[in-house]
C-alpha cells in the first residue's frame, strides 16, 4: 500500500514539473532590446575662443580700361562745338570733313532713335548722320549744322556747328600744346549707345 502511495506522489511531482516546464516554454518572451550605450562624456567646448576665420583672398578684378588701344599715350584731337557742347574728336579716327549739306540731301529713315539724323551720300558712300548731343541723351532742338565730321571709314558723320582747334591730350586727359587747358576726358560715355561712334568724347560743357 505504501509503495502505491509513493508511486502516486512521484507521478504527481513529475506532472507538476512537466506542467511548470510547459508554462515556461509557452510564456511570451519580451522582445530583445539592446542595452543603451553608455553615455559619452561631453567634451568641454571652449566657446570663449572662436575658431580663427580664414580669410579667402579674392582676386582683385582687373581694372577695366575704357580707353581704346589707339588712344594710349598722347592723343591728338580736333575740338569742335556742337550746340552747348565742346567735343574732342581724335584725329586718328577722323576720315574727312564735309559740308553738312541741305535737307534735300538727307534721307530720313523711319523708326530711328533721336540721334539718327538720316542717311546721306558723301563721296559715293552712304553714311549715317549722328547728332552727338542727342546721342548723349541730352535734349536738343538743333535743326541745322555746319559740318559733318566723317569717322569710322565713312560710316558715320557727326553733325557739328563749328570747329575750334587741334589739341594734344595726354594720358591723364589733360590738354596740352600751345594753349594748355584742362579737360575732363570722359571716355566711353557713348559706348553703350553706339559702339562705332566711340571715337569722340565731350571735353566739357560751357
Amino acid at each position, binding site marked *: 500500500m505504501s509503495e502505491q502511495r509513493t508511486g502516486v506522489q512521484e507521478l504527481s511531482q513529475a506532472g507538476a514539473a512537466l506542467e511548470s516546464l510547459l508554462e515556461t516554454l509557452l510564456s511570451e518572451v519580451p522582445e530583445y532590446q539592446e542595452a543603451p550605450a553608455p553615455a559619452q562624456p561631453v567634451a568641454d567646448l571652449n566657446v570663449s575662443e572662436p575658431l580663427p576665420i580664414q580669410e579667402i583672398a579674392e582676386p582683385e578684378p582687373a581694372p577695366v580700361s575704357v580707353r581704346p588701344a589707339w588712344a594710349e599715350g598722347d592723343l591728338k584731337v580736333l575740338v569742335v562745338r556742337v550746340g552747348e557742347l565742346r567735343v574732342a574728336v581724335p584725329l586718328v579716327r577722323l576720315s574727312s570733313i564735309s559740308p553738312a549739306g541741305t535737307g534735300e540731301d538727307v*534721307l*530720313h*529713315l*523711319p*523708326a*530711328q*532713335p533721336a540721334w*539718327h539724323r538720316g*542717311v*546721306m*551720300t558723301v563721296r559715293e558712300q*552712304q*553714311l*549715317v548722320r549722328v547728332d552727338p548731343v542727342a546721342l548723349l541723351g541730352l535734349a536738343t532742338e538743333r535743326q541745322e549744322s555746319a559740318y559733318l565730321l566723317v569717322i569710322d571709314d565713312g*560710316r558715320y558723320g557727326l553733325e557739328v556747328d563749328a570747329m575750334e582747334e587741334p589739341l594734344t591730350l595726354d594720358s591723364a586727359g589733360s590738354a596740352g600744346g600751345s594753349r594748355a587747358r584742362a579737360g575732363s576726358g570722359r571716355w566711353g560715355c557713348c559706348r553703350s549707345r*553706339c559702339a*562705332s561712334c566711340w571715337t569722340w568724347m565731350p571735353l566739357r560743357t560751357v
Partner: protein
Amino acid sequence: MANPAAEAVTDPVVQLVTFRLADETYGINVMHVQEVLRISEIAPVPGAPSYVLGIINLRGNVVTVIDTRSRFGLPGTETDDSSRIVIIETEGQVVGILVDGVAEVVELHMSEIDSAPNVGNDESSRYIQGVANRESDLLIVVDLNKLLTEEEWSEMSMF
C-alpha cells in the same frame, strides 16, 4: 567684256514700285504689288490694332488697309488727291497700304541696295531692307514680309 547672263545670276535686277511717305521715297518689290487704288471709303474696324486703318470692299473682297505712316512711326496726315492704297500680297494675305503717293517703277541691282546705314532699333525698323542710291536720290527699300510680325500677320487674317 561683262557677261550679262553671269551678271544676272550674281547680281540680279529687282523692280521696285516707289511711293512717297513723309517726304521720303520708299520702294517695294513689284512682285508683291497687285494694283494701286485711289482712296475710297475706308470703314474703320472697332477694336482693331492701331496700325489697321480699316477695311475696303475690293470687288466683293474685304481687304484690310494698313496705316503705313503709323506703322513707320511717322506723324499722321490727311489724305489728299495723291494718296493711294497699294494692294499687296505677302505672307499669303492680300492687304492694302496707305501711302502719300505712288511714283514709278524702278530697276535696281541687288548690289545697289546697301543695308549698312540701318543702325537703329532692329525691332522697330526690321522692315527696312536697305537704302539704294538711284540717280543721286536715295530710296528706302522695304521688305514687305517684315512689315508686320508673324503674330500681327495672323491677327490680320482674322479680319
